[in-house]
């Protein structure tokens, strides 16, 4: 076996992956799902912000985010202990607590990462145990010339900011704005010339969003009209 491979044990299963791989990626590549939102393959320093991909590693204190750890030979990893599940469920509950949980009215219905995680963690998409606390700001932010942002759906994973930052020729870049609970994605600079044209062609942020918090305004309008039509036709029946 070459030195470039590392062998480790995940939930009792031995896996062999290239040295330098992030633990989360190693697990995903080997069919071991760990919930995650803020990680994208190829990130050098993942933000480690969603706090869903926590795992336990024997010999190390506390849960650690698997997205930010490199695999090591002989590592013994647990991804599904009760303690981890409780933490993940709490994180999930917190993430959905800003949102209404009305999936059928959302463009990302059925392809939303939160729906997948909900199933995996056996959690409802509408929080019961915690209060529903929407962010203290408009539900829909239309600052960008052609992209809408739904603040309460947003899980602040930052993927959109990451992929936008990689478009070196973009006339402006997404970033975070605000503080604390009211942190949002900022479209500061999107009023610059050329933004509408550039973003209409790019769409990387929309594609990267795991929850459908970003969408082209046109698409969203069309989707809303469709919803209206469906509602009308249901009413007729």
């Amino acid at each position, binding site marked *: 076996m070459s030195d470039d491979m590392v062998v480790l044990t995940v939930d009792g299963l031995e896996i062999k992956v290239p040295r330098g791989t992030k633990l989360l990626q190693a697990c995903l590549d080997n069919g071991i799902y760990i919930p995650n939102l803020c990680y994208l393959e190829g990130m050098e320093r993942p933000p480690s912000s969603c706090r869903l991909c926590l795992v336990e590693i024997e010999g190390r204190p506390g849960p650690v985010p698997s997205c930010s750890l490199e695999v090591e030979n002989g590592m013994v990893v647990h991804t599904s202990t009760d303690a981890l599940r409780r933490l993940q469920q*709490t994180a999930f509950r917190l993430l959905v607590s800003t949102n209404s949980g009305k999936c059928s009215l959302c463009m990302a219905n059925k392809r939303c990462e939160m729906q997948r995680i909900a199933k995996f963690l056996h959690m409802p998409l509408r929080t019961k145990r915690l209060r529903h606390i929407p962010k203290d700001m408009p539900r829909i932010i239309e600052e960008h010339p052609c992209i809408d942002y739904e603040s309460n759906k947003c899980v602040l994973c930052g993927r959109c900011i990451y992929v936008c930052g990689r478009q070196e020729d973009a006339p402006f870049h997404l970033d975070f704005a605000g*503080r604390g609970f009211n942190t949002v994605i900022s479209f500061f600079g999107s009023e610059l010339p050329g933004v509408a044209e550039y973003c209409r062609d790019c769409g990387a942020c929309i594609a990267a969003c795991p929850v459908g918090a970003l969408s082209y305004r046109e698409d969203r309008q069309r989707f809303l009209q469709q919803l209206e039509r469906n509602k009308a036709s249901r009413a007729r029946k």
Partner: protein
Amino acid sequence: MSPESTPSQRLADMRQAAEEQWRELHEPEIPVIYVGNATCGRAAGSQETIASFEESLAEKGLEARLVKVGCLGHCYAEPLVIIHYPGYPPLMYQKVGAGEARVLVNSFLKDGSDPCFEYLFGALEPNDTFPTLMDYPRYLFEKRVIMEHCGLIDPASLDHYLAVGGYQGLAKALEAGSRRVVQEIKDAHLRGRGGAGFPTGIKWEIAANASRHPKVVICNGDEGDPGAYMDRTLMESNPHQVLEGLIIAALAIGASRALLYIRAEYPLAVETIQQAIDAARERGLLGADILGSGFGLEVEVFQGSGAFVCGEETALIQSIQGNRGMPQYRPPYPAVAGLDGLPTVINNVKTLSTVPVIMRRGSNWFKQIGTENTPGTAIFSVVGDVEYPGLVEVPMGVTLEHLITEVCGGIKDGKPFKAVQIGGPSGGCLPASELRTPIDFDSLRQAGAMMGSGGMVVMNDEACMVEVARYFVDFTQNESCGKCTFCRVGTRHLLAILQEITKGEGSEEDLEELQVLSESIIQGSLCSLGKTAPNPVLTTLRFFRDEYLAHVREKRCPALMCRELIAYYIDLEACARGCDACVACCPTEAIFTTSNRKKAIDQEKCVKCGECVYACPPEYDAVRKVSPPEMIPDQGIEPLAETEEEDEK
């Protein structure tokens, strides 16, 4: 100066002139007036005091030297003035405003006849006539290592610092070389004063051993804790000591770049430090070839724009790099890969200020102070309901009780002690039963509080601990960078629950949820802001559970603080007929006259501002506060009939 002379010799040459100046100041032929003129002194009016001294001296045609010094840490006594009149010991005066300054000139400085006992605090030196500062517990129990010269030297004068032994630590370090400096700091067991107490020597060793070059040292002067100001005071009162520590750190790890990160809300600190940098460069204590040693360093000041989280080291680095101040996952630690990916040592202002003293006096001397696990001193900014608030420097290991009751004079106005909140906004609240806790990193953490950067709020029995927890969580929630789920959303839920409890809308299940959610936030958060934010909640739940229960079960606030759960009424027995002192102060006109021409409060209109409590003359003291509001007794109040009211007018 010969080119081969050692750093120590070069420094000794410089010191000669400095000591000459110092002698003139300390064996004065004309009176010397020292005025504390750091931010705290200025806030208390020291600029007016200085102007008044200047004016009065000019009017009287008197000669005296005015020296603007930094802060001694005695906030309760500002503006502080020390007068050294030839033939007298140096005498300290408290609360010297413009008027007192005039009196001091006219009575004392004029001819030395009357040293104005009425404003005198004490003499700085033992003598037969005046009480000395050592007669006060505050001075007796304090141990000044870091703040030794604060308030006694002119921060704008490099010579003053040289005269008190400044830069000798650096000269020694330059001669000893990197490896032995690191060893000395390791031997001293110096632990970082920025909050976590990480061993400084080990941090330096990691960076020194890192293979990448160039390396960077950063002094963390962000000091975002509300109510904490020791770092500001050090930078304003003795900037060269901070700078000397920074240069030694750079030497130790082999850094060629050094930064001082100071929050922009500290303009005087920025100015003072910048002045010190310029002066040090001019005298060859900074620059290409420091004291002829061949070691070179440039220092720059970076002004942070004031976010609490930017004090966290990885966020601080982001902020210097021009990014939003958001903490990053560690490892890699900055000592391995920090600013621009370079090995970077970040140390707190107090940590760096301790370094020159250790280098000068040796690790063995340092280890005699404090405890085995945490040698040295701790500086706290003690605020709240104590008799003598301010900055205090005490040896590590003294108990909280000692600090509060002896050093700070106990609770103001003889009220009972209730709690002390230690460690800044995410510190814990400890009750009287925990006052035996020694002050050091490990003991405080065990008790559920933390050293933090040294904020301490002392509370008397009028503080509601639920409200206190709500207050601090509100702060940390607002200052959360918004990056990770637990901190951004979790603390918001803690806040929502606490808000409901303070309004009497909480339930016992909410207490359970507070506990569970707090534990998750501690476990799950990315950086220490989130990992410590629940401390005020957990400690108050643990030590003041009864108070939470009173709020949720009886809708009662035992401390009579939570507005929704209290009511004011006027005790008709105590109220004086015909007096209407309270009426005008009420912003909502809720106070009316009763049929027997006393006063009563219309609960519908009352907004519970409490103004009437202060307006009511102390000889009647008739306004009462109760919780829950239903506790207002039935006093059979009838409003004065309209017609009678007309008559009265």
